[in-house]
């Protein structure tokens, strides 16, 4: 019923607008040039008014939402990205206000006047040069700053960086830690089963202390290297507070390095939200469950991290050892993937 009434109201408004417009058209045809001058005046005034409302609205909303956009950065490189953002905001903001004000002002000032002609001004090469060179200088600044940060963000990780493997699948993140040896065992997509979701090749002994986790835990102020994979379609590892975004692609491993520098507890204080948690989300459309691909992220102090680590159990020991999937038993002397691959061929 409400829907019908709304529909009826809209039809009535529409009809009203159309009838008024039609009537107006007849009146203006009779009035001729005067009507045109008047409508030009109204539209010119409206242009100026619009620009004022628009620019005030932009300034107000930017201030109003400032506590909600660009959440506090929780990684070292996040500050670089935010700095870069601020530099760009200031430079583009100046251009934005100047050009929009000029547009609004000219639209108002130079509206149609009776017996007036436009000013014949077809070109001025000096002006063209000025507004070629100035943007070029501004953009050079932005490119130089941007690339300076870009190469620092994407540069090689230090050898001490801790490795975590994140594998995307529809619709879940599989997170693997290397365990005590700090080395991830190799994996092979052909070994994926419902238990061994990331396809770990257990003939590689390095995999035996690897553990899987439903949550991502970082120790604060330590450098991490995320090794990113996908099992099926394109996903994207999105760590909003850490300013991390990297696609996960099947058959094409990617990586991203970061150093988290604000613990979850500290962030709860900063945001005044005792329930605050960092989140890992999927940032590339991967199917029906795309928006539910969430994992919790924690940045721990050293003590918290060690306590969490102590609770983690080797995936091999708990789920694989002694089962059919345990291919390390067949030839315990295997130490690397190549040998195991050969072994597989022999089996076949």
């Amino acid at each position, binding site marked *: 019923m409400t829907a019908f009434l709304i529909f009826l109201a809209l039809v009535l408004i529409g009809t009203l607008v159309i009838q008024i*417009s039609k009537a107006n058209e007849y009146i203006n045809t009779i009035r001729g040039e005067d009507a045109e001058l008047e409508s*030009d005046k109204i539209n010119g005034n409206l242009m100026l008014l619009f620009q004022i409302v628009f620019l005030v609205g932009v300034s107000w909303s930017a201030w109003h939402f400032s506590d909600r956009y660009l959440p506090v950065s929780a990684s070292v490189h996040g500050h670089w990205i935010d700095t870069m953002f601020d530099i760009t905001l200031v430079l583009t903001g100046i251009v934005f206000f100047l050009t929009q004000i000029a547009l609004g002002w000219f639209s108002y000032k130079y509206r149609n006047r009776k017996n007036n002609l436009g000013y*014949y*001004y077809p070109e001025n090469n000096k002006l063209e040069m000025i507004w070629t060179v100035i943007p070029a200088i501004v*953009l050079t600044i932005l490119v130089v700053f941007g690339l300076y940060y*870009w190469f620092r963000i994407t540069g090689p990780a230090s050898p001490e960086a801790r490795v975590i493997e994140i594998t995307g699948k529809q619709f879940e993140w599989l997170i693997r830690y290397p365990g005590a040896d700090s080395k991830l065992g190799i994996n092979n997509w052909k070994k994926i089963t419902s238990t061994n979701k990331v396809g770990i090749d257990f003939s590689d002994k390095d995999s035996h202390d690897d553990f899987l986790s439903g949550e991502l835990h970082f120790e604060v102020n330590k450098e991490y290297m995320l090794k990113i994979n996908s099992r099926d379609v394109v996903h994207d590892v999105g760590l909003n507070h850490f300013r991390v975004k990297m696609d996960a692609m099947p058959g094409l491993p990617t990586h991203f390095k970061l150093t988290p520098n604000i613990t979850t507890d500290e962030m709860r204080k900063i945001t005044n939200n005792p329930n605050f948690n960092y989140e890992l989300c999927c940032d590339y459309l991967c199917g029906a*469950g795309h*928006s539910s691909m969430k994992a919790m992220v924690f940045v721990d102090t050293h003590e918290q991290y060690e306590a969490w680590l102590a609770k983690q159990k080797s995936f091999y020991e708990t789920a694989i050892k002694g089962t059919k999937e345990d291919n390390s038993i067949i030839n315990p002397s295997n130490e690397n993937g190549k040998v195991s691959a050969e072994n597989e061929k022999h089996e076949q």
Partner: protein
Amino acid sequence: METTETHHGHAHSNTGAYITDHVHYQDVEGVIRSEEDHGHHDSDRNKKNFIHTWIFSQDHKIIGKQFLITGIIWAIVGGAFSNIFRMQLGFPDTNMSWIGNVFGDRWVENGHMTNDFYNMLITMHGTILVFFVLTAGLSGTFANILIPLQCGARDMASPFLNMLSYWFFFMASIVMAASFFLPTGAAGVSWVFYPPLSAIRDASLGSKGGADMWLISMSLFIFSSLLGGLNYITTILNLRTKGMSMAKLPLTIWALLITAILGVLSFPVLLGAAILLIFDRTLGTSFYLDKIYIENVGAQPHEGGNPILYQHLFWFLGHPEVYIVIMPAFGMVSEILSVNSRKPIFGYRAMVLSMLAIAALAFFVWAHHMFVTGLNPFVGSVFVFLTLLIAIPSAIKVFNWLTTIWKGNIKYTPAMLFAIGFVSLFISGGLTGIFLGNSSIDIQLHDTYFVVAHFHIVMGIGAFFGMFAGVYHWFPKMYGKFMNRTMGFIHFWLTFAGAYAIFWPMHYQGLAGVPRRYPSHAGYESFNKFGELSEFITIAALVVFAAQLLFVFNFFYSIFRGKICHEQNPWKSNTIEWTTPIKPGHGNWEGEIPTVHRWPYDYGKDGQDFIPQTMPIQPGESAHHV
């Protein structure tokens, strides 16, 4: 009487200057015709059957209208889709079970749309608006209507291929529309169609039959675009009237020429990408696929491909595509700003050069869509540099437009309002591109609502404003009537304010990291703080959509009942399309095609309001040399 008819018939077969179907190119030089030939085309048209005049017409003006009306129908569909998914985003608690009545019950669960349906809507919204509306509907329409008229040609170089171009588009439309009726629905893998999601049938509901039909439809669409593009280029280069040197071309034609070149060079790459994807889907090849294990289905047989390859091929079209969309708007806006400011366009040469620069750079920036795909950082840095370089010619255009209206005598037709609105949108949306083009900032903003805001403002709404400006301005040329001005003003102000109300707030959501293509952000602490803002955006979207319905009404109403245009040159414009009869027949000019003597922007020169291109340079007058 009989003799006259014989004479007509004779004139027709010998010279074919003013004819219904086949244009003979000797006519480009102009054929002297007697006064008796007036009204010739009407009798000719009556003799031809309905189908050849209106359906399989080879008249560029009819084909342009066919593109326009098909585009309008698609725009309503694509716009309606956006309203449906905006309802989901703004009012997630509303019962939407009516979707079941319209689209089938399989798309509704507990009164809410399924995620697959949401994905289908966003995919179709993007595909329809980018390709069917803003490529075919925009450049198809105005290239067809304006190129022969503003160049001074009787028709396109190949009217037959031109007709085929529309009918390929029509077939593409039918295939795309038909895909909605599949049990598994239309494609639902987003308009960029990245494999493996688009390549593996079991990856999602939207990857099944709908994706096949999408690929077939797009292939037909590319044929359409190529046939059109080749024709536009050939016509502009070869069929200009006497005196119409390239330097005397209106900027509209320059823009359409560059658009066509972009299309002809980049669309074939998409065709290649689509064909390889079809192979991967149907023949079991592995161009884009490697190491894939689908849950509950198992390991896929594909090995050795590369999903990034598709992205490179796609964006090699995809980036020039945004300029294919915006370039015709550049041209029309330049023309309309100049005519209605009663001033020459400022810096004609700089305008042409900046368009050429943008077009050339458009081919070397595609990887800025791929900064977070694990691209080599050095390659990324090259693309940052090239991407930000595009801002320079764009800035030149903005400053030149501003200088064009400076000290003008602005006549606010609806077309002029949309042209000024375009400049405002181009500034706003262009500047946010500077954030996204810088790879380090892009890490945070990639695939968020910031991107949505950026490209909708600059190329979505921007190109629409160009299109509206064009329709209002050239409507008298198309139909011999005016569109209702008052409705045009209401349409403009609602759309201008509404478009900013929809897209400006999305910047804030994007800065907060809110990802695109989520049917719901409720599960995320960081993303669910914008409930009221989302409601506001949705209401604005509904209002703007309603305003477009007013435009559609105005358009069709004015075709039949609009104020009749009695003046040959209602906007006091210099370009030669206004030297044709008010309702030109096939062949455009009765008698000789006018000769051009000057550039099209002599407004306000030497105390004269305007001096048409056909006016010879007066003794002692200094001609504008480009």
